[in-house]
C-alpha cells in the first residue's frame, strides 16, 4: 500500500536510513499519516527481501555513521517509475462504517434516520472547518505538499456532506410520496450503498 510505495519514492531521491525515511515521509505529508519506526523497518526489510532495495555498503570505519542506509535497486527504481505512471486503483471499497450505518438505519424500524444524518453532517462539517482552519495557517505557497494533503481531506469531507444532503433529500422525498413506508427506506438504502464506494474512495 501507500507506505511501501511512499518509501520507494523517497528512496529514489537519495539513500536514507529508517529514521530519515520516517521523518521525510511525515514532513512531506504534513504528519497526516504518522508512521512508527517499526513499520518503516518492517517495510524496508520487505523491500530488501523483494529485491527492490538494498543496504548501502559501509563507507569504511571512522565516518561515525554506523546506521544502515538503504538505496533502490534497478528493480526498485523501475517500480517507482511504474507507480508514478499508473493511476491509483481503489479496488474493492473498504468497509465504510458510515455507509453501513445509514443503510442499516433506513431499514431499521425505530431509528431516526434524519437525526443520524444530521448528526453526521454536523460532525463532518466540523472536521471540514478544522481542515480549512489548518489551511489558513499554511501560507499558500510555502508548503504546497502539506496544503495539497489538506485539500484532499477538505474535498473528501465536502463529498461526504453532499452525499448526506443527497440521501436526506431522497429519504424526505420517498417519505413524502409514499408515506413513511418501506419504499422510503429502500430508496435510502439504495442511495447509501450506491454511494458506499465513492465514499470509501473519498476517505481513501
Amino acid at each position, binding site marked *: 500500500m501507500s507506505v511501501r510505495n511512499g518509501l520507494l519514492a523517497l528512496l529514489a531521491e537519495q539513500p536514507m536510513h529508517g529514521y530519515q525515511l520516517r521523518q521525510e515521509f511525515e514532513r512531506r505529508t504534513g504528519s497526516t499519516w504518522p508512521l512508527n519506526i517499526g513499520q518503516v523497518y518492517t517495510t524496508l526489510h520487505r523491500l530488501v527481501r523483494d529485491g527492490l532495495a538494498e543496504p548501502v555498503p559501509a563507507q569504511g570505519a571512522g565516518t561515525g555513521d554506523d546506521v544502515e542506509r538503504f538505496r533502490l535497486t534497478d528493480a526498485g527504481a523501475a517500480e517507482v517509475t511504474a507507480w508514478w505512471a499508473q493511476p491509483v486503483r481503489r479496488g474493492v471499497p473498504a468497509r465504510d462504517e458510515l455507509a453501513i450505518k445509514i443503510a442499516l438505519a433506513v431499514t431499521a424500524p425505530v431509528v431516526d434516520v434524519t437525526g443520524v444524518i444530521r448528526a453526521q453532517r*454536523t460532525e463532518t*462539517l466540523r472536521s471540514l472547518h478544522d481542515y480549512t482552519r489548518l489551511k489558513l495557517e499554511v501560507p499558500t505557497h510555502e508548503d504546497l505538499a502539506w496544503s495539497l494533503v489538506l485539500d484532499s481531506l477538505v474535498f473528501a469531507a465536502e463529498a461526504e456532506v453532499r452525499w448526506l444532503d443527497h440521501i436526506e433529500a431522497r429519504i424526505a422525498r420517498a417519505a413524502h410520496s409514499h408515506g413513511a413506508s418501506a419504499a422510503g427506506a429502500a430508496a435510502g438504502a439504495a442511495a447509501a450503498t450506491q454511494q458506499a464506494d465513492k465514499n470509501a474512495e473519498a476517505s481513501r
Partner: protein
Amino acid sequence: MSAARGPVLLRLGGVSRTHGHGDIAVHALRDVDLDVRVGELVAVMGPSGSGKSTLLNIAGGLDTPTSGTVTLAGSELSALDLRGRARLRRRSVGYVFQDFNLIPALTAAENVSLPRELDGIGSRAARREALEALADVGIDDLADRFPDEMSGGQQQRVAIARALAGPRRLVLADEPTGALDSVTGEDVMRVLRARVDAGAAGLLVTHEARFAAWADRTIFLRDGVVVDTTGERPEADVLLREGV
C-alpha cells in the same frame, strides 16, 4: 483564526417571515434566532427554498419580518422609519453577489466610492476610502481598471471592497464563489475571511460546504427553520492529533 469576538453587530430574535395568509401561507422563515458578532463569519446552508435568501434580505433590512426583531449595529430596525432604516442600511451593510454586480462603466475605484458618495461624503474622501478598501483586498494596483479588464476573482474582490468601504462592517454575501473556479473561489474566501478578522462581520450564503468551512460556524436551514448548527469553531488540529 479570528481574534476575540467583538460585540453583536446583527441580531435576529425570533424572526418569522410569512408570505400570504391562511391556507396558502408560505412560511419562509420560522422563529430564527441568530447573532453575528464583529470578527465573526457565519455561513448559511440549506436546499433551494429553505429560506436562505429571505434570511439575507431580512438581515440587510431589504425585507421585514412578519414577527420577531432585527437589530443592526444596536438599532432595532422596526423602531426606525423607512428613511432611518435606509440610512442605517447604507452605513452598516454591504452586499456581495454571485455575479459581482459591478457597474461596467465605472472603474474599480469608482465602483467602490460610488455608494460612499451617495452617503454624502465628498468625492475626494470617497476616493481615498476606496483606495484603502481596495488595498485591504490586495488589488489597489487595479484601481483604475474597468470590470471587463479584470478576472472574476478580481471583480469579486472589488465587490468585497465596495461592501466594506467606509464605516460598513457587515457584509452579506450571497453565493460569492458561485461564478468562480475552485482555486479562485478559495482566494476570495481568504479575502473575505481576512476582512472579517480585521474587524468586520459576515453572513455567507453558500451551497458548497467547502466554502462554508471558512466561516466560524454554519447554520442549516430547512423549510425556514434552523435545523442544525455546527456550533462555535473548535480548536484546530484536534482531528489530526487523533489520527485521521
